[in-house]
């Protein structure tokens, strides 16, 4: 019994100290991001990496999400003769919820993993120590550009995902379910409010920050060669995916909770 309690206690303490370390890392990273020197070239490279090269995977995710949403809500709503709501359901679900969350999860897998692996490898091969000896702060050089690029580019990606997702719904609605094109479009706009899109983009910015932060954090503190880098990569993806889901709820509650 005491052993069990001790084990629970140890896990709890480890959990708290982990939170403490992530918080300290976050504070340090943010404070270095807002103070010079800045590295615009590196920022640009990360923005291209995150924003441009994630477009195909995010676009594919969005179009199929929009399509399946139209299909599902049509057949479901037909049970109580509310087929007309399909366009509204698609646009609200995509902008508020599905585009930011699904794009976030895809980017977590793509960007979070690669950041953790890259920075982790730099850690275990002493490249991060080398940066310090060459009078370059590793936070400013490695972490800040990634953090900034993630926070700036995710909203842009999600905005594009919004458009593509709604378009996916439109294709299914008009070409498969027989909606009139003009009606579908007007239904899409009818109940859409700026806050729906804004809340989604806010989520995207927070998710972008979380993904890059946890990618950098796990890479930065990775230990012990290939295995350590592998563990760091896994942790980066899993922890940022969980944080995305948690913060998705919190931000939704903030915007729309009564």
């Amino acid at each position: 019994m005491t052993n069990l309690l001790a084990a629970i206690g140890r896990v709890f303490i480890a959990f708290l100290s982990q939170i403490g370390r992530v918080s300290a890392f976050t504070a340090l990273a943010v404070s270095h991001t807002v103070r010079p020197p800045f590295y615009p070239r590196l920022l640009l490279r990360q923005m291209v990496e995150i924003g441009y090269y994630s477009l195909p995977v995010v676009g594919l995710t969005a179009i199929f999400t929009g399509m399946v949403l139209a299909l599902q809500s049509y057949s479901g709503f037909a049970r109580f003769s509310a087929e007309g709501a399909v366009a509204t359901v698609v646009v609200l679900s995509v902008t508020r919820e599905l585009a930011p969350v699904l794009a976030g999860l895809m980017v977590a897998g793509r960007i979070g993993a690669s950041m953790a692996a890259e920075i982790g490898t730099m850690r275990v091969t002493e490249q991060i120590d080398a940066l310090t000896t060459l009078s370059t702060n590793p936070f400013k050089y490695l972490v800040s550009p990634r953090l900034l690029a993630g926070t700036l580019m995710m909203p842009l990606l999600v905005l594009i995902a919004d458009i593509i997702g709604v378009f996916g719904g439109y294709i299914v609605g008009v070409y498969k379910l027989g909606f009139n094109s003009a009606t579908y479009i007007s239904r899409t706009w009818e109940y859409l409010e700026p806050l729906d899109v804004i809340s989604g983009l806010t989520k995207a910015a927070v998710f972008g920050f979380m993904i890059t932060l946890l990618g950098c954090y796990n890479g930065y503190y990775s230990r012990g060669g290939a295995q350590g880098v592998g563990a760091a990569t896994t942790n980066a993806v899993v922890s940022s995916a969980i944080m995305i889901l948690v913060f998705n709820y919190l931000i939704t509650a903030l915007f729309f909770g009564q």
Partner: protein
Amino acid sequence: MTSVPPKIVLTDVHKSFGPKVVLDGINLSVARGESVVVIGGSGTGKSVMLKCILGLLRPEHGSIRIDGEEVVGIRARERDQVMRKFGMLFQGGALFDSLKVWENVAFGLIQGQRMARAKARDIAFDKLAQVGLSAASGNLFPSELSGGMQKRVALARAIATNPEIIFFDEPTTGLDPIMADVINSLIVKCVKDMGATALSITHDMASARKIADRIAMLYKGQLIWVGPAKDIESSGNPFVDQFIHGREQGPIQMELRA
């Protein structure tokens, strides 16, 4: 002469990781322009000592003075100033694999000293020539070079900013005996040409004999012998004798348990 403080002074430096004591009261003084080599078995704390001086690790106790100035616990900005005096050759090279060879060499100039790229590039190619590398290799990536060439690039990077103090972490590890001798000669030449102070750690005795003015032996967290390099054969210290002749039998018992 007596008014000039030694370049590096370590006084009673202690460092442990959890219950494991790694440095247990290190005292060492390195004069201006002198080359000191610290020898010792694997895991005796040689790298930890170097990282304490560099400020990558913080000792729990003791003082480290560079040019008479205390560096333990100084602020980040002052640390940057001290760091400019240092050059470091890492054991594995620690070259940035995302940058070309010449960009690696010029890194300290461009990022650390904010020098214009074109000028830094010229200096980088000069330094590469100094370590016997052609201009063509400057435009390759580090992964395209052999181990010996990577070591040369790392050496060129370490000396690129004309540092007053250069640290060499196992400069010959992983090289064949001839390439090791080439690197040793380059180290001697570079250090003497620049009038730099050098502190090296190694367990390669051929390397130690060649590059050292003085040799210190680290064992169980303490320097058990310090003396001129030519006296190493006649130290009269059984620990030193066993180490430099590489005997299994002697006062040093290998701990086979981790």
